[in-house]
């Protein structure tokens, strides 16, 4: 174990990241500069620090040179801080004595046209990190028990699947659904793709199994009204919206499967001006009778038109820039199915994205059944006019080079998948971040699609991005595996980066108590005079209290004033001869 009092002996490892960093930054020069910084006992540059070879090098050098601090200058710490923390720990250096410099995302990639200035910046950042490393302090590693119970938020197909998997694996589940019924969007649909079942057929057995399972507690008409705690030990208050009664539960893990909402495209293609202009979701809710009837006058629909990308793929329009993924295939399936019942069916599209297993077959089948596909230009969407109850469409067919018109009895808009109205509320409740499409950000878009930056909270299905039902089911099982993984281990490590009040300096002004967003600070009445005291388990480490304290009586572990300002100083007041490059 490293002792904080011990003289810092810092090892600096500069990563080439193949060509990614070394192609722009002179990594050898950065390492050379680092070698002469105070407290630095070793500095080198290596091809891939995250590779086994790189990791072994760190461990060997720690042992060989008795290093007690490590700085790795490579990629974003958001990517590899956990990796390197583990590495130093394997060599008996406390994980909080590691610091990472981001030379890739913040230097080489964004300054690739200015290699000299980039190298200068890299040197400065390494110098700042070394200064910080010298001030870093040992913090204990704490682990807590994981309550063997999962909260699943949202009772759609993903939530149901996740609940059932967890219960079958032998853990308890609380399933919360804000509606009075389980089943979500899928339950409402009378026909689903890619199978031939109706939504009810698909979701019915699942609901049945979930209801029957003794390990699953179902709370419908309910919403999470309070959420606190930390991984393994969350406290959650669930309120029944009709009775107003609230109950508090303790859970170890959470799966958020709040799904999506079909976009109501008001202002698009005359939606709202005629009962015969509906969304694809609304069409899917219509009775699958022998004949499709018009909502306006109850007469049979003879001519039907589908328009794709309604509220999707709109560059520059926030929340509508994404592709909604399911609509092309769902449209192909719906158009093919309904073609037998109408005289003419048209699909107006931009690109046909029937990507999935069996989806291309729907597309082919629809065409085989004489559904007419017509591509409209990205900058010239179809125009809709509603006059005397009649819908009149005009557009340009790019591939035939012709202006077209059509008077459908029913116009179906394949509208976007967007987050549900209360997405913001859910995001705040579980401290989740949202990406440009409005859905939740996963921990890593490639390799950690089911976990989030809030440890212990998983996302599944359309809560993460536009997805079809089959994909949501896979996600749900995957998220269940993540939750079970934590519960099966029984214990989990938590961050030690919390705040601490120095009782001798505290002036008992209560400022921090009101500043803390988590209610983690209270007055310790036992102390004389009463001073502020932090409940570490509740503290998330934001540091608002430390900034607010007028007496500087609050220490933010791993983010002390000194640790921050020493970086600023290292950049701005570098000792001549040690500075990065031509700055000053």
């Amino acid at each position, binding site marked *: 174990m490293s002792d904080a009092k011990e003289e810092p002996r810092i090892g600096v490892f500069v990563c080439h990241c193949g060509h990614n960093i070394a192609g722009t930054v002179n990594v050898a020069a950065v390492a050379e500069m680092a070698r002469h910084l105070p407290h630095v006992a070793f500095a080198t540059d290596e091809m891939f620090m995250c590779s086994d070879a790189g990791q072994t090098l760190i461990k060997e050098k720690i042992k060989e040179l008795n290093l007690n601090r490590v700085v790795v200058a490579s990629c*974003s*710490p*958001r990517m590899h801080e956990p990796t390197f923390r583990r590495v130093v720990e394997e060599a008996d250096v406390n994980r909080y004595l590691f610091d990472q410099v*981001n030379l*890739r*995302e*913040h*230097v*080489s*990639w*964004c*300054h*690739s*046209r*200015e290699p000299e*200035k*980039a190298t*200068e*910046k890299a040197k*400065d*950042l390494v110098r*700042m990190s070394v200064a910080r490393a010298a001030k870093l302090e040992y913090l204990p590693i704490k682990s807590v028990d994981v309550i063997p119970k999962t909260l699943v938020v949202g009772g759609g197909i993903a939530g149901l699947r996740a609940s059932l998997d967890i219960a079958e694996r032998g853990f308890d589940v609380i399933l919360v659904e804000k509606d009075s019924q389980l089943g979500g969007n899928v339950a409402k649909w009378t026909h689903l793709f890619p199978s031939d079942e109706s939504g009810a057929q698909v979701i019915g057995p699942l609901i049945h199994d979930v209801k029957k399972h003794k390990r699953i507690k179902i709370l419908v008409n309910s919403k999470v009204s309070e959420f606190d705690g930390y991984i393994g030990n969350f406290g959650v208050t669930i309120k029944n919206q009709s009775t107003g009664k609230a109950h508090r539960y303790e859970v170890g893990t959470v799966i958020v499967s709040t799904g999506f909402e079909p976009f109501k495209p008001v202002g698009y293609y005359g939606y709202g001006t005629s009962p015969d202009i509906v969304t694809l979701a609304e069409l899917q809710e219509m009775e699958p009778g022998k004949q499709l009837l018009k909502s306006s006058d109850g007469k049979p629909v003879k001519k039907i038109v589908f328009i794709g990308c309604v509220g999707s793929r709109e560059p520059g329009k926030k929340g509508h820039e994404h592709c909604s993924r399911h609509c092309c295939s769902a449209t192909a399936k719906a158009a093919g199915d309904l073609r037998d019942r109408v005289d003419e069916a048209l699909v107006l599209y931009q690109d046909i994205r029937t990507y999935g297993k069996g989806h291309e077959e729907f597309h082919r089948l629809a065409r085989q059944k004489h559904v007419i596909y017509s591509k409209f230009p990205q900058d010239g969407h179809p125009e809709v006019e509603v006059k005397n109850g009649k819908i009149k469409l005009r557009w340009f067919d790019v591939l035939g080079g012709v202006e077209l018109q059509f008077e459908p009895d029913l116009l179906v808009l394949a509208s976007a998948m967007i987050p549900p109205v209360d997405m*913001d509320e859910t*995001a*705040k409740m579980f*401290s989740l*971040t*949202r*990406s*440009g499409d409005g859905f939740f*950000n996963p921990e890593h878009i490639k390799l950690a699609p089911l976990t989030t*930056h809030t440890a212990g909270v998983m996302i599944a299905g359309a809560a993460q991005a536009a997805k079809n039902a089959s994909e949501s089911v896979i996600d749900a099982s995957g998220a269940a595996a993540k939750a079970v993984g934590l519960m099966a281990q029984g214990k989990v490590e938590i961050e030690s*980066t919390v705040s601490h009040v120095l009782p001798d300096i505290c002036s008992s002004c209560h400022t921090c108590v009101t*500043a803390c*967003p*988590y209610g983690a600070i209270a007055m310790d009445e036992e102390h004389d005079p009463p001073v502020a005291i932090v409940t570490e388990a509740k503290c*998330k*480490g*934001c*540091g*608002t209290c*430390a*900034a*607010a304290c007028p007496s500087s009586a609050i220490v*933010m572990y791993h*983010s002390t*004033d000194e640790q*921050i*300002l020493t*970086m*600023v*100083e290292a*950049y*701005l*007041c570098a000792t001549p001869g040690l500075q990065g490059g*031509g*700055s000053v």
Partner: protein
Amino acid sequence: MNTEVSTSMKTEKEWEPRIIAYCCNWCSYAGADLAGTSRIQYPTNARIVRVNCTGRLSPEFVLAALNMGADGVLVSGCHPGDCHYTSGNLKARARWALMETAIEQAGVDPRRVRLQWASASEAQIFADGVKAIVEQVRELGPIRSEWK
């Protein structure tokens, strides 16, 4: 800029604005990461100091940076309402006005500091913010001219 200052800058041609950028870990630091992965190019002058939340920043951090010779300070956090810690950025915003007054009293042009919101997906906003403050500070000249 007065002549006295100009003469004190022997190497005016080589002067490059030095910017400290305090970024919160959850939104702006990630936004800066995304700017990198998206290969958005922006000026090299800013040095990012990562903090958990903009709520962590007391006005002293900004003042200290200016005092130590930073030509400008950028504070970048999550959009109001999006804070990973519920409301830390609102606290930062509340302190900001106070801080601006303080630096003005110290004789420093408040245009040297910039508070902005950039989410994890707003790489361009982050990059534009860096560009904006670098250009602003370049216009104002080195900070040494202003401290009384």
